[in-house]
């Protein structure tokens, strides 16, 4: 048995600890300790969840707790996890620790920096354990604000513009989400409770109104076309750790919300809008991939490729069958790890060369073998090399997409498959130019290879990627039951839509 509140309490305690201490060395030790404890707890949760399942607990959510918050409005602070949340919590813990390690040498306002990182992680943990829509929304907001400051203060380039753009677009997303929540509240039995959602059936006509709000709102977080433009600007201006958090965790908040709130609560509407979701996702995948081809800045390359990769998440969710949704969840975890690693590698390169332009870098693999290797491994994962996490996730999405059967959906699947070729092109172009090739300047020989903290971050994320890629059953064992629980309701949704259409 595990008390889930501890997952939110640890970051908050860490934050208090950060306020209390002074100086870079102490600050980072507090932040590091907090992140480590959190990782240990998450791994513990992973095993505890499996133990619970072995005991024969078939509840959708386990370790549930509920406290009244605004009882008159039916708002509770309510937590619980299923397999999907456990997977996302693990991902968060990995990325947070790696992010703290990467920003080890954060000199400028280190205390505030780590404080904001910790707050962001608190928001993410709370979000993933929430089973009450209002609690979910609350933590979503908690996770948005620190990003604005992180980019605005510690960013580079057009940081004010980027911070503003990101905050405004994400806030816009939250606003849409809130409208959707209001709808589910008033027509879903005056309750924000997701655990009770099974028993409550929203009227289909109301679902048709509120589903787009909820889905698009969460979609903005996960870079849904055409609301993805905050991604390139935001990611490229953010400091390394913030980029990692943004791409690794924040974008997953959206995918998780689309699945957990939008599709699960309004399955009939999800079926009705299925074509639209798949179309938008397919556009994001192929168009994001081609847009990446033309980028010249390493961070822009990764940001656009994130748009393309997050399209797989939406595609998987849009297919509304079990395999594809499993694939979407796997892709969220995989993309989180992979893109965090990629941003970490780009950060390491940038710290040394002071440029991110592809044309100005060459021969990093020779100058700094470790960083070069990490970069290439991240690239290979991105293009879906078997043995790494990307392959597992993408193949599951493709398989689910193909099973969906409809010609349009199969066409979208083929487009998604085609994008992995384009991915190979842009990844190899970037890696070939920057990492391989001859050394450009003599100063390259002065570069120090990755320090222990950078190595630690890389090893941590690579461990996640390889475990998932070599032994996918570790993760699928917990994700599949979670999806299976949700599928029952989602499949029922398709039946009623069918009857509705008749």
């Amino acid at each position, binding site marked *: 048995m595990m008390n889930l509140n501890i997952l939110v309490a640890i970051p908050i305690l860490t934050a208090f600890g950060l306020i209390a201490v002074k100086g870079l060395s102490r600050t980072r030790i507090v932040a590091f300790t907090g992140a480590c404890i959190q990782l240990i707890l998450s791994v513990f949760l992973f095993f505890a969840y499996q133990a619970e399942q072995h005991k024969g607990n078939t509840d959708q959510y386990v370790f549930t707790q509920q406290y009244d918050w605004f009882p008159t409005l039916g708002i509770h602070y309510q937590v619980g996890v299923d397999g999907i949340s456990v997977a996302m919590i693990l991902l968060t813990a990995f990325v947070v620790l790696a992010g703290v390690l990467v920003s080890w040498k954060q000199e400028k306002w280190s205390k505030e920096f780590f404080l904001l990182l910790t707050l962001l992680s608190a928001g993410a943990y709370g979000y993933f354990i929430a089973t009450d829509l209002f609690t979910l929304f609350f933590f979503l907001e908690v996770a948005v604000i620190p990003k604005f400051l992180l980019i605005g203060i510690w960013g580079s380039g057009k940081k004010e513009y980027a911070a503003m753009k990101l905050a405004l677009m994400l806030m816009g997303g939250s606003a849409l989400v809130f409208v959707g929540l209001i709808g589910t509240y008033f027509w879903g039995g005056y309750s924000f409770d997701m655990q009770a959602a099974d028993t409550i059936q929203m009227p289909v006509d109301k679902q048709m109104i509120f589903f787009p709000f909820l889905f698009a709102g969460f979609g903005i977080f996960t870079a849904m076309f055409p609301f993805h433009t905050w991604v390139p600007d935001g990611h490229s201006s953010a400091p390394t750790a913030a980029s990692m958090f943004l791409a690794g965790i924040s974008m997953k908040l959206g995918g998780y919300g689309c699945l957990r709130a939008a599709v699960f609560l309004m399955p009939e509407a999800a079926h009705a809008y299925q074509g639209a979701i798949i179309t938008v996702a397919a556009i994001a995948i192929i168009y994001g991939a081609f847009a990446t*081809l033309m980028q010249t800045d390493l961070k822009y390359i990764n940001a656009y490729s994130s748009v393309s990769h997050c399209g797989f998440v939406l595609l998987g969710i849009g297919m509304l069958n079990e395999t594809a949704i499993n694939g979407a969840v796997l892709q969220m975890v995989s993309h989180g790890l992979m893109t965090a690693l990629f941003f970490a590698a780009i950060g390491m390169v940038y710290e040394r060369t002071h440029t991110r332009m592809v044309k100005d870098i060459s021969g990093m693999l020779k100058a700094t073998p470790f960083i070069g290797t990490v970069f290439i491994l991240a690239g290979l994962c991105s293009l879906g090399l078997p043995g790494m996490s990307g*392959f597992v996730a993408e193949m*599951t999405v493709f398989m689910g997409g193909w099973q969906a059967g409809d010609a349009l959906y199969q066409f979208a699947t083929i487009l998604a498959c085609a994008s992995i070729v384009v991915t*190979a092109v842009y990844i190899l172009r970037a890696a*070939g130019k920057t990492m391989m090739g001859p050394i450009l300047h003599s100063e390259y020989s002065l570069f120090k290879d990755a320090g222990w903290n950078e190595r630690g971050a890389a090893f941590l994320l690579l461990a996640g990627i390889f475990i998932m890629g070599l032994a996918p*059953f570790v993760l699928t064992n917990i994700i599949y039951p979670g999806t299976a629980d949700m599928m029952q309701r989602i499949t029922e949704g398709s039946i009623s839509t069918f009857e509705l259409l008749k």
Partner: protein
Amino acid sequence: MNAFDLSIWIPILPFAGFLLIGLIGKKYFPSISGWLATLFMGVAAALSIYVAIDYFFLSAPSDGHYIAQEIINIPWLQFTDSLSINMGVMLDPISVMMLVVVTFVSLMVHLYSTGYMHGEKRYATFFAYLQLFTFSMLGLVLSSNLFQIYIFWELVGVSSFLLIGFYFDKPSAVAASKKAFIVTRFADLFFLIGILIVGVTGDSFDFNTIIINLTSPEGAGKLSATFLGVSIITWALTLIFIGGAGKSAMFPLHIWLPDAMEGPTPVSALIHAATMVVAGVYLVARLFPVFILTGSGAIEIVAYIGIFSALFAAVIACTQTDIKRVLAYSTMSQIGYMMFALGVSNMHHTDGFTASMFHLFTHAFFKSLLFLGAGVVIHAVHSNDMRDMGALRKYLPVTHLTFLIGCLAIAGVPPFAGFFSKESILHAAYATHPDIFYLALITSGLTAFYMFRLYFSIFWGQKEIHLHHFHGEAGWSMKLPLIMLGTLSVITGFVPFAEYITADGIPHLAETDIMFSIAPVLMGLTGIGIAMIMYKSANALPDRVASAGKSVYRWAYHKFYIDELYIFITKKVIFNLIGRPAAWIDRTIVDGTMNLIALMTTEISDSVKGMQSGKVQGYAMYFFAGVIGLGLLCLYIWL
């Protein structure tokens, strides 16, 4: 322990070697990593030979019918109840044969590389990559299901990428490695779609189950559905074949293979001659029972792509001057042979299957021999260009002899190995597709010509060249593989192949028709004769011939401008017509809309902010105006 159970250790050994050398060996024992890797390969090779002996002789079923045996089959990634990616080991005649070929050639290449790569800075890394490749290739041949083959397919692709780009500070090597990866990746896209179709239609990824499901009457019903007027099965198999064609460098996806010669020569011998490039042939052979189903047009495509590639590559090979490129085109041409040998089969004539596998088997030995020999030559001359070579037979006697054996084998001169395998291919082609037979005959003449052009240019010729820094031919670690492969190139032809490997597992009687062999052998000898006249001693004949057929020569020399066509398509069409507009639309239209919304908000607030003048009296005015307005409104409503 049963020999079959030992077979799972064969891929595990090189994988362990890869981890050991790649993770710790690179740092702590780089100098012995080569020998360590060779040792691992030696054990793996011994095990495979043991497994092969056991499979074909000791445990052979009494009725002589070889069956596929699944040693292990572990679910790895479950999609649905019936569809899952499994990790399995399947032993059947062709996988056991490939096991021997891969481990043995890999062992030879490892041994050779300890000499060839000696003194290289990243010596240990090289062996780690070689081990990774061998592991992937073994995984590929042992795969028990279609998705597993795809997984290892990608892994051999990436190890090939790493090895071609081994000298990664050389831009040409980086370009070549990227090209190889991307072209094969492009082909793999079709393979993947084909897998999805076959998997969902056949309701399994497992080879045996797919074959049973699809060849059954119900399966035939499912497959007869059409899309764009072509049956599903043809679509699926054609797509899978495109994947195979990419890996096996069939026209028009061959462009990566010649460039791949940028890699170290042992790599070319292992990956781009003997093992990885025949993966496409192996794939078609794996799905052979499905390919020859009636109603599938895919087998015809295999046949004609095969023969076209064989002829096309042979023509180009006659004009190239880089010795490794000549060998690369000859590889492409020989794989074309294997492909069309499979393609000329149908339900009733499955001799092509045996012939194709036979050629795969013999080709692996003599082609890796030729590459390794070329490696010695390149080491001695420090150049790839045959115009820098000549009269090397004095300096490199062992290489000279073994190279000659390789050339005779590939030219199909009896009693060398290539003669037997080529002969059986021609035989199979003659039975069903006479048109292909005649083209293949011409190709075999061309093959003999360009191989002996190569041979005479390197080892004969009158030009006296001075070898700088020449320290003797090579160490025994490099000579021994040459000698062993040379021996095998002579004797493997006598293996009665049809008694072991047939499409249905039932042994046939090996037969050789002397009368039939006359034409091919004559073609081969003619080719050799012409090459001897033109290249044995320096004369003006080659230039005269080249200028006589000027336009043909120029086209062939420029490889029929296929590369230029690809560059045009990628650079001009994909980058400029798709990528650039996509990036432009994103920045200008999509992001522009977002910025426009933000701009409009600013503009509107700008225009109303004048109200906030900071003048108290102004505010008081607004206030009273508001009060009066409200009063009037109330009056209007209530009166």
